[in-house]
């Protein structure tokens, strides 16, 4: 059933005890979890506050349209390629490039699937594998990348090399390791040379093999403990993603499809050009981040989740053989029902990583990839909408451009915003199961963080300058008096102190 969003429904929230977690560790940016307890120390309300920076649009408006695909990479240090390509697709419409040349589209796809590979590799091998390999209550020093490396150097090494390969795909296709300029309105600005193709191709089979290994690891975990892995942080919700005209998984282009929590198709092949009527960006007074929902269903029933778990269960097929085999096993595991447990994101994410690795090899073997026809154009447009499936989910870019070529309007819905309500519900589910009483424990906090991490949220591309306080937890009684406090410092040390 669809969860009612109880954040808004407590009758007397001022009388509830409050636990604050700020910021959420190992998640980019700043997040804060507020848990309100009732007099019986039961969870009554949960809110995930995300300090989303809403200056994206102002940062872009007034700039020449051709600068935008490069400029928007500065929005996010985690997935700059996603913004680069979504903006490029939108600006294709400005230059009248209704259909890119085969070479240009395939080079863009190669770049995008390279990012999917490297992003998913990082998340699984280095951000989430501590949760998965060591358990949620394990030693804090072990629950991170270096802990994984020490305990399991082979896994950590594969993660590093998968990540490096993905970065190399991006470097070759975009021209630089970072701040690349490869994708431009109307196509790409450099072809792929046969030498570059061969350089990437020599490692492609290894990346596929390691991706198969990764799927096997997460699959084993689910089968060994389905009660935990299938149910933890369960969020029964609508799922939305792009699919291609055949209903196949496609990260780069397609139309929107949504299934309800039971897996029934709600709408299909809806052009994303109409996203602004299909979706409404809801607001709530306690959060800077918006809460998008399907307009026709309203804000209580219309929220949805995006990202790997939605994509894998939304599509009819994955167009690469090994990933499709794994998708079928994933679907069979649910015995005819969609999986909504948050840890299912990891399994789905690894299937997507395998799809990305296979697709990279396929693209590199395609003769078009080294073609020379890389730009096209047509009648000048004044409005462009570009949507792609970024690693964390559906990403919308929408621009208007005036006769002076300057951007007059910009609107972005980033993947993490699409998942805002779903993340809140996941945290509430976990808090209800594992948080009870007035005592803060590290294991308890880890459970909440594990649930958030499943979504791989990118919290507004924050700066990362040295010296940030990583994690602080406060417990306040019903009168607002601080009764307990827990702090994780930069080295992972945890101290608990009364105010």
């Amino acid at each position: 059933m669809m969860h009612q969003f109880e954040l808004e429904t407590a009758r007397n929230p001022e009388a509830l005890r409050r636990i604050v977690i700020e910021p959420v560790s190992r998640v980019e940016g700043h997040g804060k979890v507020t848990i309100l307890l009732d007099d019986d120390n039961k969870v009554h309300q949960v809110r995930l506050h995300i300090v989303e920076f809403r200056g994206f649009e102002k940062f872009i408006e007034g700039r020449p349209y051709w600068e935008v695909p490069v400029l928007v990479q500065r929005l996010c240090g985690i997935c700059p390629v996603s913004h680069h390509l979504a903006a490029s697709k939108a600006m294709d419409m400005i230059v009248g490039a209704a259909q890119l040349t085969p070479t240009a589209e395939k080079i863009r796809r190669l770049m995008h699937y390279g990012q999917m590979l490297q992003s998913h590799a990082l998340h699984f091998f280095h951000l989430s594998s501590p949760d998965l390999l060591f358990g949620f209550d394990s030693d804090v020093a072990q629950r991170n990348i270096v802990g994984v490396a020490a305990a399991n150097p082979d896994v950590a090494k594969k993660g590093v090399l998968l990540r490096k390969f993905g970065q190399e795909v991006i470097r070759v296709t975009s021209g630089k390791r970072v701040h690349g300029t490869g994708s431009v309105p109307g196509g790409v600005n450099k072809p792929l040379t046969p030498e570059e193709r061969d350089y990437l191709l020599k490692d492609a089979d290894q990346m596929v093999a390691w991706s198969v290994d990764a799927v096997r690891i997460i699959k084993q975990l689910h089968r060994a403990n389905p009660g935990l892995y299938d149910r933890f942080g369960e969020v029964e919700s609508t799922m939305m993603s792009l699919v291609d005209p055949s209903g196949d998984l496609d990260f780069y282009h397609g139309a929107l499809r949504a299934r309800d929590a039971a897996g029934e198709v709600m709408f299909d092949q809806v052009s994303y050009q109409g996203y602004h009527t299909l979706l409404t960006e809801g607001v709530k007074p306690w959060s800077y981040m918006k809460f998008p929902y399907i307009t026709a269903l309203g804000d209580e029933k219309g929220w949805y989740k995006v990202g790997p778990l939605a994509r894998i269960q939304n599509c009819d097929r994955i167009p690469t053989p090994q990933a499709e085999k794994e998708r079928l096993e994933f679907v069979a595991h649910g015995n005819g029902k969609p999986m909504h447990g948050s840890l299912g994101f990891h399994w789905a994410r690894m299937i997507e990583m395998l799809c990305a690795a296979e697709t990279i090899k396929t693209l590199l073997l395609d003769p078009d990839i080294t073609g020379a026809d890389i730009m096209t154009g047509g009648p000048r447009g004044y409005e462009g909408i570009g949507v792609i499936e970024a690693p964390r989910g559906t990403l919308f870019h929408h621009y208007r451009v005036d006769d002076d070529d300057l951007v007059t309007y910009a609107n972005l819905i980033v993947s993490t915003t699409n998942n805002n309500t779903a993340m809140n519900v996941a945290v509430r589910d976990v808090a209800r199961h594992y948080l009870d009483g007035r005592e803060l424990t590290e294991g308890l906090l880890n459970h909440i963080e594990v649930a958030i991490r499943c979504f791989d949220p990118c919290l507004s591309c924050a700066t990362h300058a040295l010296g940030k306080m990583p994690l602080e937890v406060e417990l306040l009684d019903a009168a607002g008096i601080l009764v307990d406090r827990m702090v994780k410092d930069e080295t992972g040390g945890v101290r608990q102190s009364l105010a």
Partner: protein
Amino acid sequence: MTAPTLIFGWGNPSRGDDALGPLLLDRIEALLPHHPEWGAVDLLTDFQLQVEHALDLDGRTRVLFVDASARPDQSPFRAGRLEPARDSSFTTHALSPQGVMHVYETMRAVPPPPCWLLAIAGEAFDLGTPLGRAAAANLEAAVDWTAAWLEAGRR
């Protein structure tokens, strides 16, 4: 060809003082042609440090990591030697330089090259803002320190 000396500056050039790391690289790049005595120096940048950057330590004899620092501090910058450390800085999607060194040590089964950290003090990190006046002054001091560090490296 891998240069023996690496300076790795990270940060988002469009987020105010977070640009200090990449800007220091620009300044050093401009100085390199005038200082052949410093030898070959690679300058690398990224938005943040990640696991794959451990591979950038291969073949180096000394490495300088450069970042902006948001820590309240009276000094224009802080600098010092680093040792590999188990990284538990829960900053997600971003490793500390000590963590990068530890990944290297784990992967390669040998100690990483000698590494230093130069943390340049910044104040404002908002998207679209320029480098602050205080940060610009701090950058000058940090460039001088880096030049001295490069000079010392040839001895």
